[in-house]
């Protein structure tokens, strides 16, 4: 069977991505899974493996007291942060979609952190306390939160305020995606709604939101994945620490990374179920 010229071009175009995927994603994943099934030592004579079966996976849950603790903290953090980021991104996208002067400049400003704020930059900002809003008195916020919520939840909310600027910095790509879909909405729809006496509030709920719903799901997934991979994420740091831990090492750390990946996939699954498009039954 002869391959069509278009098909060939298609493969050629995705070839760089394919090479990157195979060498930088698939191969490390297979390697990581192999590590996770072994007790691995990095000797000066080379890597040594002792087959450990699924012991490393078991030990992640049974031996590492921090993993479950950090996982719970991450789940709670994510539960709070993902909606905040997505809602903020939507609000900013709608503002940037207005016909205002210097629109391009504003769009650049909001996207800039995506390029500038790499892991080390964010770490420095957090360390220097530059991610909290200076005008907000954190102690007062904490005391109010403590009065209103249980300590464990107040702590999470307090962290949110402490790192609010960082969190909002995660919104660049989401803003871009929302902007793209907002520009696709036919202005005639709004015009017709206005003629029928619809307020801006009603237009948002009846026209904007239903139209952008698929993008909300994409943005939720994107935000969850970016938070899960963030250098600020304590679980990533825990995996790193275990890599170089004397009695655990790469095998244990790889097993932990795989377990973490499974948890993230489960969280993504929950998001998909919650925001999936419901098919309208035909009569």
């Amino acid at each position: 069977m002869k391959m069509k010229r278009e098909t060939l071009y298609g493969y050629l175009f995705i070839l760089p991505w394919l090479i990157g995927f195979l060498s930088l994603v698939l191969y490390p994943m297979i390697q990581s899974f192999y590590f996770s099934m072994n007790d691995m030592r990095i000797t000066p004579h080379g890597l040594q493996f002792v087959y450990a079966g699924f012991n490393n996976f078991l030990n992640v849950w049974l031996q590492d007291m921090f993993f479950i603790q950090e996982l719970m903290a991450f789940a709670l953090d994510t539960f709070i942060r993902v909606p905040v980021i997505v809602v903020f991104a939507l609000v900013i996208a709608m503002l940037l979609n207005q016909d205002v002067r210097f629109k391009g400049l504003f769009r650049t400003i909001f996207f800039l952190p995506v390029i500038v704020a790499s892991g080390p930059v964010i770490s420095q900002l957090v360390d220097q306390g530059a991610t909290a809003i200076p005008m907000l008195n954190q102690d007062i916020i904490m005391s109010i939160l403590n009065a209103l919520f249980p300590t464990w939840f107040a702590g999470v909310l307090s962290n949110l305020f402490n790192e609010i600027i960082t969190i909002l910095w995660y919104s660049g790509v989401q803003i871009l995606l929302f902007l793209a879909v907002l520009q696709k909405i036919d202005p005639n729809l709004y015009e017709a709604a206005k003629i029928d006496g619809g307020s801006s509030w009603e237009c948002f709920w009846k026209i904007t939101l239903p139209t952008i719903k698929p993008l909300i799901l994409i943005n939720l997934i994107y935000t969850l994945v970016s938070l899960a991979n963030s250098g600020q994420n304590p679980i990533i740091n825990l995996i790193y620490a275990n890599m170089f831990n004397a009695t655990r090492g790469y095998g244990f750390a790889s097993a932990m990374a795989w377990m973490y990946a499974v948890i993230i996939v489960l969280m993504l699954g929950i998001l998909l179920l919650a925001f999936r498009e419901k098919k309208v039954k035909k009569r």
Partner: protein
Amino acid sequence: MRKNVWPILSILLIMVVFVTGCSSNDSDEQTNTGIVESEEGSEHAELPPMTDEEITLTYASWQNHELQNYLAEQFTAKYPNITVEIVALEQDGWNDHLTNLASTGDLPDVFWYMGNVDIPIRNMWLGDFTSYFEADPETDQLLDTIVDKGYFDGDRKLAAPTAYLPYTIFLDENLFTQQNVAMPSADWTYSEMLDLIEEMTIPEQGIFGYNTFTKLVTMAPIVNGDSDGEFGWDGESYDMTGEWDDALMKHGEFVRNGNHAPFYDTDEAEAAFGDRELWAASTGRIAMQFDAWWTVDLFGTDEFVDKGIKWVPYVVPKGDNAQTENKPAFIDFGSISAATDHPREAYELLKFFGWGRDGWEAKLEAFQTLTREDGELVFNHPDGLPLVKDEDLWEELRTLLPDLDYYDEFLARSKYPIPLGGAAMPGFQTYLDEVYFGGEYGDVEAAVISGEVNAYDISSDLTELINQYYDQALNELFY
């Protein structure tokens, strides 16, 4: 016929192998370990000769970079056929960097490991240099308390102390004079120190008895219990009952009673000093600062002198009923790579940069002569103390220190250092991570200080656990 020949030949071969194996070569004294027996046939062996070939050895440590380069030059001057290549690594994440080098087969021929010996042992980085160490006449000159350190499995010398920075307790002489309290004797005891902490706590003047970087719980078992390591290590097992729990309870009491300075960056620090981020030792209101040798340099700077603070060094006091002069110390360890092609030469390099006499002569020279680009001396005071007993080295080092009797007294009582757990004891750091600072009680010390936990109630359990961790580490690390 031919079949019958094979059994006869086999028997002959076995006999030849047996006889050869049992025979000794009287004319050649070289043994299979490379150690040459002396002519008298006594126990003293001699080190095998160094190679004459042109070789390059790689070396990684977190010593001052200028000092490393200087020592490398001096080593090459002594052994012109050996080039030393310094491997520059960031001190932060040191063991991680070594792991990365090992993974690519580039572990330096000679390296220091940081804090946790479990990492190099588990990954089989440590070369066995028992034969060289035991045949080396310079080994006899090592300070008595550190000779046996590095025999992790009891038989093989896998690491050796390479740098020695003693625990140092600084007393503010001016504050003592101001309060009309006599400075203690250089031979002060542990209980005298505790009494002084209480005596020098004067709440109405905002004066605190002590501030800690180094801790009572580390000192007490070593100086009071004559331990050979942290947490009551006696050479075979740990015992955290008796000294450790006493010291921690006492420290907790001192913190709660206000004998201890408020901790950094707390509301109490802000209330006491007007600045929550001000180091208590620079306030002029602390009688004793539990610290380490490297702070001598800082305490001699204008920042402290201008404030009227005169920190003078004391050794950790002796236990009231102690039999030894053991003192806790920050001791770094190094080893030769298990994969080095030149173990004999690598051993010599490790020794030269660490405890060797020639190396120390070079270091003393460097302390006095090395300058930066701006002409300033690299070292304002010696970076560490000798690991050997050679009196002339100690005397020369003394000349580089301020002209105060305190330094004479200090050096005279610093000859029995005891290394801290992580670098010297398998399983120790893992125990700290998983039990002591991250176990059932969270941070054990913090829990006791806050009064949530009574150290006497948990010291037996902790003892059992730390001994388990030690045994597990030995079993697992030498698999």
